[in-house]
Each structure stands twice: as structure tokens, then as C-alpha cells.
């Protein structure tokens, strides 16, 4: 009977702990390779595509692109990852839910393009609310093209990821712009007269046609978004 007891207990132990090492290895591992393209403010592809930081949420390792725009993560366990690409002056791209199986050959991630953020400065800005229209006008450093979007929220933490209302993408191009303006009809917005609202304007690269959908915030995002103004509050009266 002693032996039987011993056997039962050892049996349980074996199944619980005997193969711990193998279980760590259940998932395959492998390398992930990807390429990043860079487009500057004028819409030209950049020759030197180095210096893009790529991180995978859930992994501590970080990869950097070389001149060809190539990056590689080594020995990644199989799983679903978010890949985050960023480069100073180029903004951020997030690739959500990248599924990786692992294996002997590297996996290739679809190419990602980052767009240079516009180098425009706002020199002065005016806001007004008249006849149920919010009017925005501003003076800017001279530029040949400007693309911007205004975001409105009822709280002061308004941003391109936190808003109740966003205007469409507005674009002007030509020679030597020094000012820009925009009118927002109150009827388009979820607000009514008397509300207190917060506005913020973002510039973006006019060559960026498609951004990406940010699944965490439920918003459509352009990689080249650059906050152009501080948050401005306005009482709609």
C-alpha cells in the first residue's frame, strides 16, 4: 500500500511539474522582418530610411531600421502583437493585431509608410462664435501647402484621439500662404448654444492619404498628425 500511495503521489507530481520545461516551449519562435518607407513634407520618398524605432507591445526588445528601411525582431514567440513604428518628426504608426506563428524562416510584415510632419508654425490665432458659426483664423509661417483638422470636445483633454467632433481634413495649396481659416457650423456638431467647448488644431502631411484605424481609441488616425495649437476653450454664445 505504501508503494501504491507513493506511485499515486509521484504520478501527480510528474504530471504537474515533470514537464515544466517542455511547456515553456509549447509556442514556436521565429524572426519577424519588415520594411518602412519614409515620405517627406514635399511627398518625395526619402533615400535614407534609417532611424525608425519599431517596438512590439508585449516584448521588451526594440528594433531600428537600416538605410533600406529594414528592421528585424529575432526569436519572437508566437502570438498576437501590436507593432508601433515611430521616428522623430514623422509621428507614429500602429499596426494592431499582427498574428505571428513562428517557424524556421522569417515572417514578413506588410510595408508601412511614415509621413514627415509639416514644419509650419502658428504665429497668431483668432476664434469667434457668431450666427451659430465657429470661425477660426490664424497667421502661419509661409508655406506652399497646409492640411489641418480641428477637434472639439466638451472636456479640456481634447486631442486627435479624444474628441466628440472632428472637422474633415482641410487642404490648401499654392504659393506663399501666410494665413488659414475655417468655419464650423454649430448644426454639424453635437453641441448647442451656451455650451463650453475645447478645441485643438492638428496639422498633417498633405501627401498622407490613408492613415490607420486606432482600435484602442476607436479613431481614425494619420501618422503625421502634429499638434498645432494648445487647447483653446470657447463658450458658444
Amino acid at each position: 500500500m505504501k508503494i501504491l500511495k507513493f506511485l499515486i503521489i509521484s504520478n501527480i507530481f510528474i504530471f504537474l511539474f515533470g514537464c515544466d520545461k517542455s511547456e515553456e516551449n509549447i509556442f514556436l519562435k521565429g524572426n519577424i522582418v519588415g520594411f518602412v518607407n519614409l515620405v517627406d513634407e514635399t511627398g518625395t520618398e526619402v533615400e535614407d530610411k534609417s532611424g525608425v524605432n519599431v517596438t512590439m507591445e508585449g516584448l521588451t526588445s526594440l528594433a531600428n531600421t537600416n538605410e533600406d528601411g529594414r528592421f528585424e525582431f529575432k526569436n519572437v514567440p508566437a502570438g498576437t502583437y501590436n507593432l508601433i513604428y515611430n521616428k522623430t518628426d514623422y509621428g507614429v504608426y500602429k499596426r494592431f493585431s499582427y498574428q505571428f506563428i513562428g517557424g524556421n524562416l522569417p515572417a514578413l510584415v506588410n510595408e508601412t509608410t511614415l509621413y514627415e510632419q509639416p514644419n509650419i508654425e502658428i504665429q497668431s490665432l483668432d476664434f469667434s462664435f457668431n450666427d451659430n458659426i465657429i470661425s477660426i483664423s490664424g497667421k502661419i509661417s509661409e508655406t506652399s501647402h497646409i492640411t489641418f483638422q480641428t477637434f472639439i470636445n466638451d472636456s479640456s483633454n481634447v486631442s486627435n484621439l479624444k474628441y466628440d467632433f472632428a472637422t474633415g481634413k482641410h487642404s490648401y495649396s499654392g504659393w506663399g500662404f501666410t494665413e488659414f481659416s475655417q468655419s464650423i457650423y454649430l448644426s454639424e456638431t453635437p453641441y448647442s448654444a451656451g455650451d463650453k467647448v475645447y478645441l485643438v488644431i492638428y496639422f498633417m502631411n498633405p501627401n498622407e492619404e490613408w492613415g490607420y484605424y486606432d482600435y484602442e481609441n476607436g479613431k481614425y488616425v494619420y501618422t503625421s498628425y502634429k499638434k498645432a495649437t494648445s487647447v483653446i476653450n470657447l463658450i458658444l454664445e
Partner: protein
Amino acid sequence: MKIFKRNNKIRVFIFFILLLTIACEKVTEYEVLSGQLIGYVTLYDNNRNKLTDHSGVEIIVEGSNPQIKASTNENGQFIIDNLKSGIYNIVFYKEGYCQHKIISYQFVGGNKPATINQTSLFGQSNLQINSLELTESEYQYTVVFTVKAKVSGQIENTNSICRYFLSNEPDISYRNYISTNVVYKYTGNEEISFNLQIDTLKFPVGSELYMIMYPASEVNQYYTDINTGNKIYTSININKPSTVANITIPEVESPW
């Protein structure tokens, strides 16, 4: 044997080891899924006419060890059984056809077969590019060259395609290039002639431009070179390159 009977500890120890082996084997089996992979290949001749018999295409699964091979039946179907979960390059090869490759195919495995996107293979073009010539063209403000190529073989084919590659290095090829595009050779013509505008950001004034041309059977088919990111066009006939032509990028008048 007497020792075993007398010494229970040894018997238990042996049993223990046995259990450990069995238990660990079970986990090992669970480690990697496997399953069936099914794919279809469509064959076209060198004039983009679909064939009726799609058999005899050899499929090589790069990244499998030992290397798995399969071939297509008349319908173009191929089946690979017991493929382990992993990442593979699938190579499609048939004598006389342009070899194609699907890279970094992630295979999960499971109870139902996985199907890989339908693949087309094109017969290798028999067009022969006998000469390739670059001359300066007189355009204002932009760098434009006239490209002339003399061709022979299959000249009666409807709109044969040629793909050219540009580089600033003399060791130019379909693998090593900066930009590429296709031109059509119209039915009956024995010459291809077109104007080529040069992007001086990629090919600066004073540098040497190199060009090579291959007969092609189709326009779009490629895979990505995982080392360089270059698109490797697979529907060209890599055995029939033109000679390498070169010219110096001239200075152009500024519009200002």
C-alpha cells in the same frame, strides 16, 4: 532479477522514469500543430493564354526539414500532408515557365486543410533583346532619354512585354536595381522605342545611369526580397537579359 523483486525502491524508481517519459512525450506531441495545405496553380503560355493542363508544377516548401515537395495534378491542385505549423517559402517551378515564390507563408495547421492563394505561372518569353541603346533626348528642364531596343523571336505575339531596371551601379540586375517599369512591344514590331524621364533625386546630374532589360510574360508578379525589401519580379525571363546600357545624366536648364 532477484534484486528487482527484493528491492521495491528500484522498481518504483524505474516506474517513475517510465511515467516521466510518457508524460513528457505527451507534451511534446502537443507542441506543434500540423495539417494539410492545399493550393492551386494556373499555367499560362508566354502570350498569357490559359492552358487546359496545369499538371507538372513542382512545389518546394522552403523551411521544412526534411524538405517537402509536391506536384500539381491536371487541375493545378497540389496537396501537402502533415505540414508542421511554421513559416515557409513556397516555390513553384516548372521547366520552361517563370519560377515564382510566395515568401513568409505562415501556416497554422489544424483539422481542416489550409488553402494558399491561387498562383499563376507564365511560360518564359522567347523574345530576344539583341541591343539596348540610351541616347539623350532634347527636352527642356527635365532629363529625358530615348531608349531603343532591337528584338527578335515571337515578334508576332500580341503586345509582348519587356521589363527594364535602372541603377547607378554597373552590376545591375533584376535583383539589384533602384527603379523598374515595363514597356510593351507591339505586334509585328522588331524595335521597342520610348522616352524615359529620369528622377534626378534618384539619379543625380553627373552620375552614370545603367539600364538592363528582360523579356517578360506578365506585369505584376513579384515577391519581396526579405534582405533588401526590393521587389523581385518573377514573370521575366532571367535567362535572356539584354546587354547593360549606360549614359551620363546631363545637366539641364533650370526653369527659373
